């Protein structure tokens, strides 16, 4: 236990060191004039601007709009992917019938669909939500199917031997056993969804959102600092979302091997 704690602490310190080093390199490259300052402002200026934006209510409204589209798309993706995954994973006929379609759709890069969906739905929130949802469906869907396949057959037999039927096995064994996989899928999708939300906004170029802020700053003269400050915000949002989801998973699924150690 002590050793684990020492290792966690070491990892944390190394992480901090890495961030500081990257920060220092950006700062030096810009200040030494290796790259023109208008292309790459010093990291400290970018960071200062990012902090300043936290007090800018118009900017915060934009971030709020992005997060709303992100949450709505991700929520819809969960509502679709989990039931469909349970169906595909537990009824082999449906799985076989849909495999070809799924394998065709899956490798399509979601970002490439932005122009198409914009054409169909216009470049508003609907487009953004639809694209976020489309991209988020896959990791959740595949993790659900995979998790079902990994369910302990002995656990299923145990419940059957007590006289429970197919539906009870699905709800009482397969679903809880698959839940950690589904949660990991949601966490992966959360990052993908953020990419799609911001990317859709950048390509749309007008309206309200973090991506819009970045796109419009890119058009302004000397806008690089604002562009990068927006990017810092996007990265920070991703980091926070990931940390929150990891924490939730740890609380909900203490029995999984990777969380077990700290609860014993």
């Amino acid at each position, binding site marked *: 236990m002590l050793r684990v704690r020492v290792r966690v602490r070491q990892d944390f310190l190394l992480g901090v060191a890495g961030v500081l080093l990257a920060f220092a390199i950006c700062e030096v490259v810009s200040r030494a004039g290796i790259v023109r300052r208008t292309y790459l402002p010093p990291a400290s200026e970018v960071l200062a601007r990012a902090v300043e934006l936290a007090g800018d209510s118009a900017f915060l409204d934009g971030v709020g709009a992005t997060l709303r589209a992100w949450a709505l798309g991700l929520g819809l993706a969960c509502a679709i992917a989990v039931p469909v995954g349970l169906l595909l994973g537990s009824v082999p006929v449906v799985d076989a019938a849909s495999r070809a379609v799924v394998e065709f759709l899956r490798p399509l890069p979601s970002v490439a669909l932005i122009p198409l969906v914009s054409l169909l739905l216009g470049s508003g929130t609907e487009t953004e939500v639809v694209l976020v949802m489309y991209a988020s469906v896959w990791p959740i869907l595949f993790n659900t199917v995979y998790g079902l396949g990994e369910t*302990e057959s*002995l656990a299923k037999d*145990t419940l059957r*031997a007590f*006289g429970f039927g197919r539906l009870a096995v699905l709800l009482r064994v397969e679903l809880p*056993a698959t839940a950690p996989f589904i949660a990991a899928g949601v966490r992966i999708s959360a990052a993908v969804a953020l990419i799609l939300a911001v990317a859709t906004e950048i390509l749309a170029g007008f309206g309200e959102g973090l991506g819009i802020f970045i796109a419009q700053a890119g058009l302004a003269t000397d806008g690089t600092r604002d562009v990068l400050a927006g990017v810092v915000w996007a990265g920070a949002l991703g980091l926070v979302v990931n940390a929150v989801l990891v924490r939730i998973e740890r609380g909900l699924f203490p029995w999984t091997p990777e969380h077990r150690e700290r609860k014993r």
Partner: protein
Amino acid sequence: MLELRKLSQWYGDHAVLSDLTLKVPDGELLCVVGPSGCGKSTLLRTIAGLLPAAEGEVTIDGTPVTGVPDGLAVVFQDYGRSLFPWLSVRENVALPLRRRGLPRAERRAEAERILDRVGLSGAARRHPWQLSGGMQQRVAIARALVCRPSLLLMDEPFGSLDAQTREDLEDLLLQVHRNDDTTIVFVTHDIDESVYLGDRVIALSPGPGSRVVLDLPVRLPGERDQIGTRGLPEFVELRAEVGRTVRTPADPSGLSGPPGA
């Protein structure tokens, strides 16, 4: 009365059990021994209705077993995989009671009662993965007993436990058997254990196509204890008899058959 008539099971085109016929009277504790790969687990899964019989039939009180029969409980060797880690010990034990539509409070009380009986009342709120192997198997046994099964199937339940825990659980099982009059089919590869526990011991021949090669009533005093009983001359003799049968296969050609199943 549990009856198996000319039961055969196949794994691909490899016979696991062939023409197995067996009668288990109500309230008997029958031990099934045999070398690994002789189809002991297949036999149990067939009786449990988890695996349909390929040929022949299994009946309970004359009714053919087509699905999982009523009043059945099973304890598997691998407690780690058969307990549900997302449920507490008490929830695990209370789960089978849901099928009987008992209200929550009663399920809880029943679970507490049975946990007390297996000496785990202190662990009710913990989770299976927080317990030692012996305690986990106690939970699995408690879960099997909570519905007062009329037929209890046990598949090498003590196989992976240390000697002390194993002896404790053997005595616990004997006590349950005496009190509840449950019919128990107990599969083991441990000859000593089969004689110590059983009212009767049967041995299966090595696969493929296992049959009953020994059917031996155990005439030992009903009240058994780990030191005394194992020292009785009758015990030593019975153990030797089972041992000879299991170690010298009736059909030596069986040894060249494929392993597994």
